[in-house]
C-alpha cells in the first residue's frame, strides 16, 4: 500500500482515543500485524464493586460500625435509599412506602433482602437521631439506618448513582433523589425504582429482581426440555 493511499484512508477516518498503543496503519488489507495489549484479568463482579460499591465505614442506628461492601452488600440482595431525619420533601412518602414494603415481606426483609437508608446529613443525624427516626416509622430488623463521615457519604452517594458527578464541595446537602437502588450483588443485577410509587409496585419489582434470576434449568448450558440438537 502506498503512503499516499494510506494517508487518504487515515484522513478519511476520524480516530478517537488511543490508549497506550502504537498506531498501526494497515487499514484496509485486514490482516496487518496487530500488537498485543496487556488486558486486565478482573472479574465483572469486581469491576462493579470498584466502580460503585466502596467499602466505606458507616455506623448503624445502634452505634455499630460496619463496612459498606463487606458487611452490607457483599453476597446480598439490597434496597438502598438516601434520606435524612428532618426532610421537607418527598421523604415522608418514601419512608412510609418502605415501611409498608417491610411489613408486606416479613419473611424476606432481614433474611435475604436487606434495606439500608443512608442519611444525607451525617452532621445532624447521629445514630441516636436515626434510631428514633427508625422507631417512629416502625422499621423492623433487617432495615438499617446509617450515618458516617460526610466525605464517605458523599463518595457513596456518587458511586451509587444518586447524583450527577459534581466534584465541588457542598455547603448544604439536602439533595434528595427519590429513588431506591435495588441490587442483587452476587448476581450482578442492578436497577432502580422510584420511591414515591404505590408500595405494591415496589414490592413487585423487588420480588422480580430477587427471584427471577433463580428461575431456569440448573444445567450450565441452560437448554430447555423441548430443544433440538
Amino acid at each position, binding site marked *: 500500500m502506498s*503512503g499516499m493511499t*494510506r*494517508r*487518504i*484512508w*487515515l*484522513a*478519511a*477516518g*476520524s*480516530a*478517537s*482515543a488511543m*490508549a*497506550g*498503543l*502504537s*498506531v*498501526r*496503519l494497515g*487499514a484496509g488489507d*485486514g490482516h496487518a500485524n496487530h*500488537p*498485543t*495489549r496487556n488486558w*486486565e484479568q*478482573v472479574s*465483572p463482579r469486581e*469491576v462493579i464493586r*470498584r*466502580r*460503585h460499591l466502596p467499602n466505606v465505614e458507616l455506623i448503624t442506628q445502634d452505634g455499630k460500625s460496619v463496612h459498606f461492601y463487606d458487611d452490607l452488600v457483599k453476597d446480598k440482595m439490597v434496597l438502598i435509599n438516601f434520606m435524612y431525619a428532618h426532610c421537607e420533601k418527598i421523604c415522608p412518602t418514601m419512608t412510609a412506602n418502605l415501611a409498608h414494603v417491610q411489613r408486606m415481606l416479613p419473611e424476606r426483609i432481614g433474611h435475604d433482602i436487606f434495606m439500608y437508608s443512608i442519611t444525607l446529613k451525617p452532621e445532624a443525624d447521629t445514630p441516636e437521631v436515626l434510631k428514633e427516626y427508625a422507631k417512629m416509622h416502625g422499621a423492623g430488623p433487617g432495615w438499617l439506618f446509617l450515618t458516617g463521615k460526610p466525605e464517605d457519604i458523599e463518595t457513596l452517594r456518587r458511586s451509587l*448513582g444518586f447524583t*450527577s458527578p459534581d466534584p465541588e464541595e457542598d455547603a448544604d446537602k439536602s439533595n434528595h433523589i*427519590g*429513588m431506591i437502588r435495588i441490587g442483587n450483588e*452476587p*448476581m*450482578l*443485577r442492578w*436497577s*432502580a425504582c422510584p*420511591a414515591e*410509587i*404505590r408500595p*405494591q409496585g415496589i414490592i*413487585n*419489582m423487588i420480588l*422480580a429482581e430477587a427471584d*427471577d*434470576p433463580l*428461575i*431456569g*434449568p440448573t444445567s450450565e448450558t*441452560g437448554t*430447555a*426440555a423441548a*430443544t*433440538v*440438537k
Partner: protein
Amino acid sequence: MATQREIANARKNRLEIIKAGLTRRDLFKMGLLTSAGYLIQKNGLSAWAQSCAAGSCQPGCSPFIPPFLDPLYIPPIVPSRPLTDPAFKLPPQQCPHNTRNPAINRPYEGRGQYDGVLQAGKDCFQYFHRYPPQVYFVQRLRANPNFRITSDTSIPAQTIWGFNRGGSDPAMVPGPTIVTHYQTPFLVRRFNELPPQAQNGGFGVPEVSPHLHNYHSGPESDGGPCRYFFRGQFYDFYHTGQQAGFSTTPFSPTGDVRESLGSLWYHDHRKDHTAENTYKGMAGFQVNFNQFDTGDEGTGFRLPSFPQYDVPLLLADKLVDPGTGLLCFDTFGFDGLVGDVQLVNGKVQPFMDVSARRYRFRVLDTGPSRFYELHLTDPRNPSTRIYFWIIGNDGNLLPKPYLTDSIRMGPAERFDIIIDFGRLQKQFGTSILNFENRLLQTDGRAPKSVLPGGDPQAKVCMQFRIGAAVPDGSLDPMKGGMTFYQLPPTTTVVPRITRTFNFNRKNGQWQINGRGLDNCADIRFTVQRGAPEKWILINTSGGWQHPVHIHTEEFQILSRNGNLPTMGERSRKDVCRLQFSERVELMIRFRDFLGDYPMHCHNVVHEDHNMMVLWQIGTVGDNNTTP
C-alpha cells in the same frame, strides 16, 4: 499522573507517528492535534495526559480500534422450518402451552405470563384460525463468548447475548434477518437458552421479551415489557401477515395495503432491563415484502434487489473498558449512554465494496441513546453536499422518493435510502465515500450540534468503496415518476378524542405526564378499537430529547410546532423525535386487536427509568385527555 511506563509508551508512539510519515494535517484530521498544534491530551500520546483508569466506562476512554479493517457483515437469513422440525415437538397452538415443565418448575411456554406470573387462559392468539400460520421460524437466544467486533486481534473476543438461526449455530450480532411476505401468516418460536444471571459479565438479564418493532400485532405476540419469559421456556410469536384494517370493511380480509411495513427490527423489551439487554446484542432485522415492494428489481416498485443490493445497516455505539478490552455498560446510569466505538452490523467502522449502481440501504439506529445526522462525505472535499434518496421512514415507504443530503435519526428510527453509487462516482470522480455522522453528542440526554463535514469529532460510521459498474435493473428516482403508496387520509378524519402527553423528569426519573410505569398492572387509559385519536406530544426547554415510540400502529405527524412536517417526515411513522421545546400532533388509529401496549421513549435508558406508559385497545374508549 502518568506512570513511567506510560511516558515511555507515549514517546514510542510519537516516534512511530513521525516514522509513518503522517503530516500535521493528517494528525489534525484524525483529531490528534489541538488547534494550537499540540498533541491532544490522550493517554498513549501525551506524557501528561490523564489516564482513563481501568474500569472506566465512558466516552473518551475506550481503547483505539482502527477503522476500515473489516468488510460490512451482512447477517444471514433465518431459514423457515417445517412443522416436523423437532423444535416444534410441542406444536404451536392458539393458546399457550401452560403445562408445567418439571425441569424448571414453570410452564413450557412463556406466553401467558404477565410480569412473570402465569395467567391461565390469557394471551391466546387473536385471529389464529382465520389466518393460520403458513411459515415457521425458530430462533434461540444464547450467549456467544467468541464474538469479535473487529479483526484487530489486540482487542479480545466479546461475550454477546443474542439470537441465532434456530439450530445449533452460535448467536450473532446483529441477529439473523427474518424475511416475511404480506398475506403469508408466520410464527416465530424463540427458545430462551441464555446463561444464568450470575454469568452476565456485568450487565444483561436472562429474562427476555423480544419485540417485533413495529409490526401490527396482538399484545400476545408483540413482545411488550411485561411479557418476559424465563430461561428454559420458549415463546411463540404469531403474526397474521395482514396489514392494519384486515378485520373490517372496506379492507378485510387483507388489510389496507397503504399500511404496509417493510423495514422492521426485533429486540428485547424486558421491563427495567431493556437497555442492557439490547446493548448486549439482542437485536436483529426483519424485512417484509409484498406485491409491490417485492425484493426483485424487475417487478413491482422495482427497488434494488434483495439481498445483494438491498442491505440493512444497524448502527450501534459502544463503550469498551480500557482495562479489560471488553464491552462495558454501566447499569447505574439514568441519562443514557453514548459510546465512542461505532459499530455497523456488529463491526467497528467497516468498509463495503459496492458496485457502481443503485443500492437500497435500510438504516437503523439501534441506540441506546445516540442521535445521528448521517451524510455522505467525500474525504477529499468534505464540505461538498452529496445527495441520496429517502424512500422510507420507520419502515414505511413515502408517497414518493425525496432527495436529501442528510438524515437525522433517533434511537429506533429507520430510514430506507437509495444511494446511486454509479451516478455519484461519475459526478465526483471518486470511488471513496464515507457515511459520516456529523451530529456531536456527549451525553445520553440530547445531541449538541452539527459539525462540518470531515471534522475530527465527526465519526465515519462506514466507508463505501465504489468498484465497477454492473447492470442495474432498478428504477432511477432521478428520472421521476416513481411513486409508492398514498398516505391514508388524516384531514378528513375526526378523532374521537385528543390526548396530551408531557415528557418530563421528576426527582431524577423520566416520566410521562408526571408518572412512570410504576408496575405492570398500571394501564393508564383505554382507546376505542376503530376510533382514531389525536395525540399531542410535548417537550419543554429542559435540555433533553426523546424518540417517542408507540406500539402496534403507525401514526402520521399532522404538525410539528404548528407547521406541516418536512417532506421526509410526511410518512407513516412509529418513532417521533421530540427535540427541545417541541409540540407534535399526530393521528393514530387502533384496529383489529384488543389488549395492552406501551408508548415509551426509545432512548432505552430513559425507558428503563421509567419513561413508559401502558394503554389498551378496548371496545369502548375512555375520555381521559391527560392520562
